[in-house]
């Protein structure tokens, strides 16, 4: 079964401190992994995807197939990073569309 687990519903860190949002998944195969973010009063938007290997707004995420994890990291948190973060997966191409399976989300709060 496809499943995404985000063990922390809430995470609070101080500005300037490192941030790590945990994501573990179960999937029989090689999924594509994503992080989505929802800022206050805004719509859900893509933050990054593992196949791009990009760093967006200082965030990075490494896919660890051995541990089936895709943790999101940022070395120095900023107040504007406060938001709801969702980890998601989809099946590998070309098997159908990118039907996304989401985790429950982690609400990140950056304290000044």
């Amino acid at each position, binding site marked *: 079964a496809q499943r995404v687990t985000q063990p922390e519903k809430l995470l609070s860190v101080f500005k300037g401190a490192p941030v790590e949002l945990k994501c573990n998944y179960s999937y029989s195969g090689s999924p594509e992994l994503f992080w989505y973010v929802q800022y206050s009063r805004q719509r859900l*938007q893509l933050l990054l995807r593992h196949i791009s290997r990009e760093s967006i707004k200082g965030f990075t995420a490494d896919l660890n197939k051995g541990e089936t994890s895709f943790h999101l990291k940022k070395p120095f948190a900023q107040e504007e990073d406060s938001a709801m973060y969702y980890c998601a997966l989809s099946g590998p191409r070309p098997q159908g*569309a990118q*039907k996304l399976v989401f985790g429950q989300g982690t609400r990140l709060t950056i304290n000044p």
Partner: protein
Amino acid sequence: GAGVSQTPSNKVTEKGKYVELRCDPISGHTALYWYRQSLGQGPEFLIYFQGTGAADDSGLPNDRFFAVRPEGSVSTLKIQRTERGDSAVYLCASSPGAYNEQFFGPGTRLTVL
């Protein structure tokens, strides 16, 4: 340009009633998705359209739920005989193709009393 839009933004209905939720995707996007987000949960996939056809409706919870996209653009999610458990935010997303980034709408908050 304009993003994905959804109407209404809020819908309150009584148990047993019929509701329709509308999604206007980004112009030119061929793929359209519906998700449902219950309180405290992440979005849950309902159905995916490629053009006019439903390519994957495996997420529809039961036969009270139905969606159409007759002209390959606007989509309508239809819920018959609503139940209190249907209360959630219904999200629509569109993308240029099946493997591209999905762009989400603001959602419709459905409350069934």
